């Protein structure tokens, strides 16, 4: 029997749920309501309303990615230096929230952060000033970091744990101190994991509309929310598809950069 037959279900799945929808996005994005070819839907990104939403989304996802990286790197290093028992316990603590539904977790943050929510009740009981970050960009960043942090930790942990302990010992042996060993050996060797972590956090953060909707109220519109509204509320599939294509370009751009830098990271020293 031809083994290629085994891949048929996957090919069918990809065709039906990836290729066909993608073609439809391009079709709708490049036509107007009457079906005539046009670039208007794509150029619509230039309007103040849309470009502001895109800029806001880029800003918040970059900030979230940077925060995730700063939190995840030390954590991944600590995990690597632990013995297996402690290590698996900490990893468990870390992935435990991921067993819960994404929406549920985000809604939980909403309840926590609300003006009369759990955190503020505790703060006022302690006669401390209340925390008003719900419906602000801060809450959105918090939600993004909370939800996407594991996607940064895991690839980083994977590359760090694979670095031969003797390679690090060799650096010390040749006279390097802790900082020199980190910047010349550990950091460059962790770049592939870092870039895959950045991609895995940045892409979902850039396109999210759920986190911004739940934690940002309706006050802050990210590009994801704009697209969602075009499809579900306004019913303008052409405009929604056009904006999706623009967003896709940003994601592809990010991926290309990470692939290129990744290659350099492996081939180059410093």
């Amino acid at each position, binding site marked *: 029997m031809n083994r290629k037959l085994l891949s048929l279900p996957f090919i069918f799945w990809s065709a039906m749920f990836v290729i066909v929808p993608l073609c439809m996005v391009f079709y709708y994005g490049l036509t107007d309501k009457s079906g005539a070819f046009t670039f208007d839907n794509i150029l619509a990104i230039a309007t103040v309303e849309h470009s502001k939403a895109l800029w806001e989304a880029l800003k918040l996802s970059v900030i979230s990615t940077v925060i995730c990286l700063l939190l995840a790197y030390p954590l991944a290093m600590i995990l690597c230096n632990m013995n297996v028992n402690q290590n698996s316990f900490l990893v468990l603590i870390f992935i435990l929230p991921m067993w819960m539904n994404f929406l549920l977790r985000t809604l939980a943050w909403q309840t926590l952060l609300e003006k009369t929510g759990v955190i503020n009740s505790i703060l006022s009981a302690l006669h401390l000033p209340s925390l008003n970050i719900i419906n602000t960009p801060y809450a959105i960043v918090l939600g993004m970091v909370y939800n996407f942090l594991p996607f940064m930790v895991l690839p980083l942990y994977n590359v760090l744990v694979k670095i031969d302990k003797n390679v690090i010992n060799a650096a010390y*042996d040749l*006279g390097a101190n802790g900082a020199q060993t980190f910047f010349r*050996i550990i950091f460059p060797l962790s770049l592939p994991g870092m870039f895959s972590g950045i991609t895995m956090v940045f892409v979902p953060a850039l396109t999210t509309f759920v986190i911004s909707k739940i934690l940002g109220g309706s006050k802050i519109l990210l590009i994801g929310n704009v697209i969602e509204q075009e499809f579900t509320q306004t019913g303008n599939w052409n405009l929604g598809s056009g904006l999706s294509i623009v967003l896709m370009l940003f994601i592809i751009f990010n991926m290309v950069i990470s692939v290129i830098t990744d290659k350099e990271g492996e081939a180059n020293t410093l």
Partner: protein
Amino acid sequence: MKNALVNLVNISKSFDNQMVLDDLNLYIRENEFLTLLGPSGCGKTTTLRILGGFETPDKGQVIFEGRDITNLPPNKRNLNTVFQKYALFPHMTIAENIAFGLKISGKSKSYINDKIKYALKLVNLDGFENRMPDSLSGGQQQRIAIARAIVNEPKLLLLDEPLGALDLKLRQDMQYELIRLKNELGITFIYVTHDQEEALTMSDTIVVMNQGYIQQIGTPESIYNEPENAFVADFIGDSNIIGATMIRDRLVEILGARFDCVDTGFGENKPVDVVIRPEDVELVAPEEGILQGTLIHSIFKGVHYEMEVMANGFEWLVQSTKMVPVGTKVGIKVDPFNIQIMKKPESEDEEAIGVNE
């Protein structure tokens, strides 16, 4: 010790309540090729890691050039290590790997370039500057690891089973290479291995270790010819180790037969162990032998035949270039000089400590 480069004084170390080294004392002379030899878990690698600064002993001192370096971190020690699996920096070219230590110590560019050229020539890998480590074979990577260590002109080079991952032919070539390097550079080598042949080939001094204790220190010849206890005799080369009784000075009873020997001072009618190397067992006609037996097994090994002779209830391991058919009745003779007498350890603990010294 006057010309001792390194002095290990009363070193003890345990991991998880498991004693790895117990009150170890050892000095290493300048320009010596010293090998720590023993089975895995004997404490040889731990000793090396204590010297390199990767472990701190629980007790005791490491004296290097007259200075106590016990608590000095690895990067502050004037010695370098060649690690078991090379441990080259995978993201750097060969030249950058070799330059690493020199760059850290802030040497000039031209000095570094000269050193890279010199080191690559020394290990016979000229022109490899811009290659990446993973494009090199195991043997080549090992040479680079050695080059990376010696460009820093350490007083002492620690080698942790550096040839363990190489195949037999390459390993033999590298052994000669290492002896040549050591003679050219005048660096003291401390070499860790479990391979007795490697130790015999390269070392000036062999330290045989077992269960955290030094069993015997000596030249390859003295370790091989005059093992001090059954462990050393058994670990170094093949040997017949037989329980025997020392009748009086220069006479020992082995398996009921009396052999002349050259050892004295064991007392009269004292139980001892004797070691007889298989190449020292002479097979003669039955009536000429001190013991009589039957040849039960013979294998051709290239240079010699490896045979087993059953005599007085003991299987004698015999190596000889002369073929004897299986089933032949033979006599066994041993030159008195080739019988090595060892005091019998009274308990297992004593055996580990190597009380025969």
